[in-house]
């Protein structure tokens, strides 16, 4: 794994609100609402674009690059767009990679209206805070227990043992905290769903489980053409937290209901 200079990184805390956007077209009954299927999207948000191919008799198609969904609209022999919202919905649902990312619903009635070219719309709504780190350390350990079976005293077969939750801890001095929308909760608020974070939703799939958040380390090296690296520690449950708001320090340990973080490499320009 690449070494991350935590001073160049931002630690983000996300709640479990599903990102969504409505692509609002001019014609009646042509608006569609796109909602993320996953609670664990983080900074590399899903986006949707409607493209006018500007050629005659083009077919409706859907292309997916990472989390960017592009809908190439169908046209008539006179190069006019002919795709209705209902057709766009069907095309997205028929595309496995697009369908894995979003749920599409009609924002008006049955989607009979013809859509138009639309610039990038991002699925926003997930609540989050960004913690700009001054000094500190972030550690995690994923475990892979194995069972070694012997045959008459000699090592023989190996089996995987039960999964173990990943341990995560960080101890840092932060310079500032920002929130994408609404008020700015403190680190402790975000972990405890209180104060400015009272409306945050859990990232756990089972609502009966204790409240959890997603932790993300966003490493933007800012050198040359290197991509940003994103590590997401999904469904994190804190077990010990100490936070000094006046000094700007936070020390947290806990575990994730996952065996390892998810990692992504994304061009910096793709992070909205």
């Amino acid at each position, binding site marked *: 794994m690449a070494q991350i200079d935590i001073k160049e990184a931002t630690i983000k805390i996300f709640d479990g609100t599903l990102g969504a956007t409505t692509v*609002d077209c*001019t014609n009646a009954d042509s608006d569609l609402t796109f909602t993320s299927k996953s609670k664990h999207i983080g900074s590399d948000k899903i986006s949707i674009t409607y493209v006018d191919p500007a050629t005659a008799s083009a077919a409706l198609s859907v292309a997916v690059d990472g989390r960017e969904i592009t809908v190439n609209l169908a046209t008539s022999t006179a190069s006019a767009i002919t795709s209705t919202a209902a057709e766009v919905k069907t095309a997205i649902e028929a595309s496995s990679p697009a369908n894995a990312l979003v749920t599409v619903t009609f924002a008006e009635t049955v989607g009979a209206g013809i859509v*138009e070219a639309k610039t990038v719309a991002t699925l926003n709504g997930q609540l989050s805070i960004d913690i700009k780190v001054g000094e500190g350390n972030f550690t995690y350990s994923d475990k892979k227990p194995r069972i070694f079976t012997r045959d008459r005293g000699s090592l023989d077969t190996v089996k995987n043992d039960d999964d173990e939750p990943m341990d995560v801890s960080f101890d840092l001095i*932060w*310079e*500032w*905290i*920002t*929130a*994408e*929308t609404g*008020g*700015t909760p*403190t680190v402790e608020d975000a972990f405890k769903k209180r104060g400015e974070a009272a409306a945050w939703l859990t990232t756990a799939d089972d609502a009966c489980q204790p409240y959890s958040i997603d932790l993300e380390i966003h490493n933007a090296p800012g050198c040359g053409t290197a991509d940003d690296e994103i590590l997401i520690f999904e469904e994190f449950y804190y077990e010990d937290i100490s936070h000094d*708001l*006046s*000094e*700007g320090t936070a020390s947290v340990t806990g575990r994730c209901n996952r065996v390892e973080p998810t990692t992504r490499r994304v061009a910096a320009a793709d992070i*909205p």
Partner: protein
Amino acid sequence: MKYKGKKVEGRNTEIIAIPRPDGNIVFIAEAVPNWEQFEKLAPVPSPPEKLLPGGRKEPNYQDKKYLEEISKYGQLRTDWLVLTSLRATKELEWETVDYSKPETWPNYREELKESNFTDIEINLIINGVANANSLNEDMIEAAKKDFLAGRE
């Protein structure tokens, strides 16, 4: 209000004629009296706040999303001014612009291009809007000189 004994009425207008073989296209740009409607539809983006150690909060003017919004806001102001000024052209209808939806305002440029207006013609229209709204410094200077010449 009266000026030289005459009631001051009407707004500054500018006529922009674009020659076409099948009939000239004449745009009328009228000065926009105020920005009230614009401000209602497209409020100035406000920066998010950042929380500093000690619990102090201050605006985060360096926020990437805020900087993008401010840049878009500047363009929207121009688009709104052009569209609102050109509403004085009674014969003009935009097909993809909805005056109540700011996200549709930039579409007028595409519509002009689709209607085969050249970049130079589009600039003429925008300059006409600027002139109607007294945004042309040369014209203001000329008016000032004209006034001063009358006093001599």
